[in-house]
């Protein structure tokens, strides 16, 4: 059986042949498109390391079959920065030391990006903690992550004010 799906990944249109319907979006990204920034921590939707944005919404890429995202617009960690210019969320993670080993970091950053776009956690640390709780961190970098998300939220809001 051979299928093919069309995707936009980090702004680029792709037609991807899929010879096996069992392939998840996560394994498609990692093993076939070699976009290995998105991590596999549990393969069961329990850790959030594989968080990507699909049509602007954050999802666990390990829980989506690749064939189910035909036609979707996908944003991964590799698509956030513009060359050497980091996205405000990425910059805030570095500044606030919002990571240690770095393995959950792509998921945390994509989740934070999604959370900020959702506009539900406006500046409230408790709501940010709640909204980020699907992304596990084992090193214990939580304090820096939450500071980073709050700071990034402020920066993004400021940017938007300037544009508007």
């Amino acid at each position: 059986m051979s299928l093919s799906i069309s995707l936009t990944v980090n702004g680029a249109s792709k037609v991807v042949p899929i010879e096996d319907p069992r392939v998840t979006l996560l394994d498609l990204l990692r093993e076939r498109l070699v976009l290995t920034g998105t991590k596999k921590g549990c393969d069961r939707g329990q850790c959030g390391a594989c968080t990507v944005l699909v049509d602007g919404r954050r999802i666990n890429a390990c829980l989506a079959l690749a064939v189910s995202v035909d036609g979707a617009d996908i944003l991964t960690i590799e698509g956030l920065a513009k060359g050497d210019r980091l996205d405000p969320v990425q910059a805030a993670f570095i500044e606030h030391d919002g990571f240690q080993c770095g393995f959950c970091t792509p998921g945390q950053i994509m989740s934070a990006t999604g959370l900020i776009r959702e506009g539900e956690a406006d500046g409230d640390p408790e709501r940010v903690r709640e909204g980020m709780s699907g992304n596990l961190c084992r090193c214990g970098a939580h304090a820096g992550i939450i500071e980073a998300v709050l700071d990034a939220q402020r920066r993004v809001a400021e940017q938007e004010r300037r544009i508007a």
Partner: protein
Amino acid sequence: MPDTIPFRAQNVRMGSSSGQPLTRRDGFLKVTGAATYAADNHPENLLHAVVAVSTIARGRVASLDVDAAKAHPGVVEVITPANRIPLALDPDVKVGLFGFRIEALQDDRVRYANQPIALVVAETLEAATEGVRLLAPRYDVEQTRISFGDGEAFEPVAVAFGSPPVAAVGDLGAGLAAASHRVEASYVTPAQYHNAMEPHAMVASWDGDRLTLDTPNQAIVLSRAAFAAYFGIPAENVLLRSPFLGGGFGSKAIMNGPYILCILAARMLGRPVKMVLPRAQMFGPVGHRGATRQTLRLGTDADGRLTALEHDAVATTSSFDDFLEPAANASLNLYASPTIVARHHGLRLDIGTPGPMRAPGEASGSAALESAMDEAALACGLDPLEFRLRNYAENDPASGKPFSAKSLRECYAQGAEAFGWAGRALEPCRMRDEAGQLVGWGMGSAIFHAPMFQAEARATLRADGTALVETAGADMGQGAWTALAQIAADGLGLDIDKIEFRSGSSDLPDGGVAGGSGHTATAGSALHNAGTDVISKLTELAVNDRDSPLFGAGNAGVDARHGRLYHRDDEARSESYQSILARAGLTNLEGNGRGGRDPASAEQRAMFSHGAVFAEVKVDPDLGQVKATRLVGAFAAGRIINPKLARSQLYGGMIWGISFALHEEALHDRRTGRPMNADLAGYHIPVHADIPDMEVLLIDEVDPYVNGLGIKGVGEIGITGTVGAIANAIWHATGVRARRFPIRIEDIIVG
């Protein structure tokens, strides 16, 4: 609290890098997804391997449907005890310092649940995964021993890696007899699994007799030799690359069966093989923190001084190996007592062998000790902090040696001040918040030994005034890429942007072990010494050169900083490294250095980091739900190289303390011996919403003996003290004493 720790010690060249809160040098790679972890590698012609693991805990594999698995499209090979090629070394023999008996399909025995019983190799991950399912193993099952009640007790010859199982000072009977108050309490700690976010992973490729391994590893050069031994090749034939580890916590310092099987598959099939353990397989073959049952007896006199301290621990291990959590040793070096006895017993169960996990021994032992100390304080009618101060150890209680440096009093004082400890009621159940929640405050002392391993490093100054520094260090998140580069920069008297740091690969000088909180001290010393070696050669060139402004200054008469040598008595006389090298006609200048503990210092001094942790919890009076709401930790750990990263390490340790106290526990089915919560939904670790406001204070400490740089370590100490502080805060809120960890809602409601 300033972000920069000033230098006080005179024993190193004054630097501009160490002590600065620099952001991580690998930060850009990590936030853009460009940092390459082992499983991110994709050599040409790659095969995927998935381990089949046992679903029973004791018995033998009676059959595997190898034909069905091999018939599945894409499956290339199924490796079982029947066809696996021989190893040069018996997997039941231990190799090296961190050797363990491992399961590499040597026979059909099953010794624990999730033990490897076959390896399926396929063209795709999906095919290999399905191949494993098709094996449909059948077993001859034997009765499982999985709990404290049914294990096989034994008296060990050693605990952890070769430590004595019993340590005793003074006359315990006399000490207990002299006590006016006695407290006896038992505590159970559960099996815990490291669960680094990055599962164990490997990409193995052979080229003739040369082997390349991409795999996360905490002891790169040591492990290279161990891998080589299993395959009968010289250590130099193995290239082990581990630039980034997605967490380790001890589990990536030790050998395991799946890794050997992955390498074996690559050899048998003549193609590169990638293997990533599924999360469930992280519960078995790659180590864990063994369960303990600990009993403490404390005697105190009328003044609240300890007359006796006895710490007895039963620690669990596997049926076939010996690692025991050295929990009772947590009582040896912290509180003054005329008699201290720490004793361990072993209990064999049908589990994978435990191993070192973040603060092995100290974490579980401190949980019990700090809880018991709280009970003893109450028995004496003393505030828990005052009780600890009365039992402050001026010298190491176990050895009688003076401490190399101990700043625990300052930790107590500053931690208590920041927390607002003064005025706390002695009795429990006295505080409620505005929502009616019970509020409690507790504290605990933190202690962790300050070991060093052996490391080597090389520094090469280049003609353009930059330098290459190299050591096979391991960064599992603690910040070695940054902190080690900062130390190297100071050793060379260069600004950090002039430093190119190579690390994380076995073809570099041996960086030692990222473990025991000793990596920064050990690899850092080696790097600093390599830099010093370069500078002394450079000085030699300059002071003997008539054309140099430093001519005649003598080797002791110059300072190195910002890429120049300065005459110590006349700042106006200086010369840049580039010009010294250029005049000598050199394109580069190499220096080498070693790091390790000075045996004479070790003989004379006891070396520990210390700290104090204060916790607030809130407990729902009706539902028994607990939340840690505030934590303050004050730690003294010698020189802090990078306060930003050190704080992150200490936060991490304290969060592990929250996890130990309130969340983590592996549950095993009593009939089958299988872990019932072998996933990240059932095995609870704290999520963001569980983490309170936290504060870490870095207490300035000058330690002139621990090593030339005055560095101890900060990776593990945070978990000690924290567990007890939370348990004690729960008592203060509710009047219920924790007897087992994690502390559960039912303990609080029923208690």
